[in-house]
């Protein structure tokens, strides 16, 4: 080989603590190095041109750049050597900035270390070989998991951009948490008036197919070509026929079915359409409470249905769809506040969550929009709001801020006054976090115009007193203890990751963080990408977010999917595993350990079993290479030989000539 070595000063970032000229001198003596030089900023335009010129002038067939982290500029330099006509894999980087100049004080040691790192890169490069990416076509279809506002936005943007969309929603209707809200901050506009039309668009858009009452069962394949199996839960109603007329729900005698849409504040019928604006507007039977399904008696819905769509025999159905990209918008769940002993652990019916309160406020809710407290249906006069229930609290492993509770609490205090003019709201808070446009003004209005009384401090306990609850807490600003008699207590329950997130993450190979929120590719520069190519994040599944941010992310994820699938063909990373069939003994251990199902067994013409890598599925982790005892399957670009060459460069084998005996 003819190797060129380029040592970058990075201004004074490297040259300040590494003697770059010495490194050049040492590197010039490394095996197969025919050219070594240094430059001020190798990544700059003139720096890259310098590499290209040197490749031509010295007839180089491999390049080592010693500069910053390859995680930073490897793509840059690969493009540069490619421009000069080399294969981009005939390039190696030595990280002498993050791993040397920035962390070591001693210049002599740093220089020595930099030279070692260059030697390792040279020794590896000597064993590199050109790798060529394979092109493959993509399916111009996007899967959106979750039909909350983020998912809806992503689906509509993708569909409007010309892609087919498959939306999978676990519940009976799309709309997510937003559909349950009464009004939204800081504009106090009606939530369903804003969201409703978008939900209708989903139903009507010719490019969108919606699977409600469905969940993603498994995902295989790779960017551009995912194969997704969707489980459609049995609804016992043939949705192709159901018109959503609602006759069945009126006649259903089983009226004690839990009502998740209303946050279990009331009950509903066994056959049910969750709310008037539901999309799809189709009835479904709750098999746990349906008398026909439980006991075989009843069958009224089937009798009254004008189109004959009731099917008590219906089974779950598995549907497989091929998609090119996946947007994950699985949203969030509410923290289980029962973990707090101080709030009564559920003993007091008039301690409710903020989302339950939304349903009490909503005209389509169980009370028809009249605030009636659960215990006796009386209209409360004193309403106490407690913030940060399951937020910013290490004791319950929820150290993070849920972000939007301060805002909706203010909104609910305002709405309380609107509904019950002679009411008084109290808000226990830690800090008011209102950083959005018009947000801080909004919270001030709650206090100043609507008279909500804000108490800075935590609540120590709630206990009953007559038909009231006494809320005892600290007022840290006044330095006193306060007790507030309350007719109703509303807990601003924090946000936590959706319950199925960890399992879905495993299916999608998207890593959840310690709290179950999916981890984005880069916290700043790749906020909607994941480390799995072709899988994007939108909304609160990545972390707590309010509606505008979720919508924004929905659009961002859609833009990423559109960008990805706008290319006719994608290129696969050629640094994948490769089987040397001569060495493969067909033991299939690699197949068992591959996390991606990227290796399959094939039979050669002699009838012997051999492993074969599906290049586009292989992610290049190298687990198989370590699994294979005879080294028959090698991860390209990180072969045993390449890594051993680095080991040997660092710890050269002793070649003593002391004879054996």
């Amino acid at each position, binding site marked *: 080989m003819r190797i060129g070595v380029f040592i970058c000063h990075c201004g004074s970032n490297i040259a300040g603590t590494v003697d770059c000229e010495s490194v050049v001198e040492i590197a010039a003596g490394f095996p197969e190095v025919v050219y070594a030089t240094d430059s001020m900023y190798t990544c700059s335009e003139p720096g890259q041109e310098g590499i290209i010129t040197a490749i031509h002038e010295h007839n180089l067939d491999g390049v080592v750049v010693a500069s910053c*982290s*390859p*995680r*930073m500029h490897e793509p840059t330099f690969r493009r540069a050597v490619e421009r000069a006509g080399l294969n981009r894999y005939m390039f190696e980087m030595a*990280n002498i*900035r*993050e*791993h*040397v100049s*920035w*962390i*070591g*004080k*001693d210049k002599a*040691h*740093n220089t*020595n*270390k930099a030279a*070692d*790192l260059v030697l*390792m890169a040279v020794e590896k490069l000597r064993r590199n070989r050109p790798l060529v990416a394979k092109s493959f076509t993509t399916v111009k279809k996007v899967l959106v998991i979750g039909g909350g506002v983020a998912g809806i936005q992503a689906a509509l943007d993708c569909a409007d951009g010309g892609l087919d969309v498959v939306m999978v929603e676990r519940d009976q209707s799309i709309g997510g948490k937003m559909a349950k809200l009464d009004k939204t901050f800081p504009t106090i506009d009606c939530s369903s008036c804003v969201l409703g039309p978008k939900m209708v668009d989903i139903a009507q858009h010719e490019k969108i197919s919606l699977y409600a009452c469905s969940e993603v069962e498994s995902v295989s394949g790779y960017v551009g070509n995912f194969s997704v199996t969707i489980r459609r839960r049995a609804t016992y109603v043939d949705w192709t026929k159901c018109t959503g007329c609602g006759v069945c729900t009126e006649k259903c005698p089983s009226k004690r079915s839990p009502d998740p849409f209303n946050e279990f504040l009331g009950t509903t019928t066994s056959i049910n359409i969750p709310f008037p604006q539901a999309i799809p507007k189709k009835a479904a039977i709750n098999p746990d409470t349906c008398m026909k399904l439980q006991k075989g008696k009843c069958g009224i819905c089937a009798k009254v249905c004008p189109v004959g769509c009731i099917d008590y025999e219906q089974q779950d159905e598995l549907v497989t769809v091929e998609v090119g990209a996946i947007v994950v918008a699985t949203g969030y769940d509410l923290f289980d506040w029962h973990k707090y002993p101080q709030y009564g652990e559920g003993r007091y019916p008039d301690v409710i969550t903020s989302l339950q309160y939304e349903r009490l406020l909503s005209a389509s809710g169980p009370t028809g929009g009249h605030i009636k407290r659960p215990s006796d249906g009386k209209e409360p006069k004193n309403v106490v709001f407690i913030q940060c229930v399951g937020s910013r609290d290490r004791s319950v492993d929820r150290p993070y801020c849920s972000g939007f509770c301060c805002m909706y609490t203010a909104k609910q205090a305002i709405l309380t006054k609107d509904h019950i003019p002679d009411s008084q709201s109290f808000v226990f808070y830690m800090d008011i976090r209102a950083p959005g446009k018009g947000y801080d003004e909004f919270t001030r209005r709650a206090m100043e115009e609507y008279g909500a009384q804000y108490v800075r401090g935590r609540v120590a306990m709630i206990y009953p007193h007559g038909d009231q609850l006494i809320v005892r807490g600290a007022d840290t600003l006044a330095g006193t203890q306060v007790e507030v008699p309350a007719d109703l207590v509303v807990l601003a329950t924090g946000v936590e990751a959706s319950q199925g997130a960890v399992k879905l993450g*495993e299916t999608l*190979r998207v*890593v*959840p963080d310690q709290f179950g929120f999916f*981890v984005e590719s880069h916290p700043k520069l790749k906020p909607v990408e994941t*480390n799995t190519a072709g899988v994007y994040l939108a909304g609160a599944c990545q972390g707590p977010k309010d509606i505008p941010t979720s919508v924004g992310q929905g659009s961002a994820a859609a833009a990423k999917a559109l960008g990805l699938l706008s290319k006719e063909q994608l290129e696969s990373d050629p*640094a994948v595993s490769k089987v040397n069939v001569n060495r493969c003994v067909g033991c299939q251990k690699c197949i068992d*350990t591959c*996390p*991606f199902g990227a290796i399959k067994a094939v039979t050669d013409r002699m009838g012997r079993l051999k492993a074969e890598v599906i290049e586009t599925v292989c*992610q*290049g*982790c*190298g*687990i198989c*290479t*370590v*699994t294979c005892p005879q080294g028959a399957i090698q*991860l390209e670009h*990180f072969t*045993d030989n390449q*890594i*051993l060459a*680095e*080991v*040997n460069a*660092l*710890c*050269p*084998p*002793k070649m*003593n000539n*002391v004879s054996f005996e």
Partner: protein
Amino acid sequence: MSAQDEQRELRIVGFLCNWCSYGGADTAGVARFIQPTDLRIIRVPCSGRIDPLFIVRALLNGADGVLVSGCHPRDCHYAEGNFYARRRLEMLKRFLPITGIDERRFEYTWVSASEGQRWQHVVTEFTRRIHELGPAPFFNPVSEEEWAKLALDGAARGASCACHG
């Protein structure tokens, strides 16, 4: 550790996964967390790519220490790589004592891309440990005297050893 020992570098080889620990080392660099300079890092895609025999080869070739770091369990970019790595590396660590290679010369841990400070701590502590252990003995005797001593000790065990069979 004398000042002179601190001056002399020992040979410490690091195997780091690209996605977490290499990034963690980068993060430490960006934050200018000063570290001892003995360690040289070999970048691999995943801790699941690290064959325990790479570590053995390094140790037998005279490395004074080998440090492996990957993503925290459950956080593997490739979903399962570090789960396999954990088993492989643990078995190597437990096996080394029978070979006479001090198992403290090899360590494995998990550092995420955001844990720059932790990386600094790991490198500092591991390097300190290796300096305390001092340079590793070579497996192959390097001089005729060493050969002679070994052979003599072996011969002293004589032909009578039937303690295995």
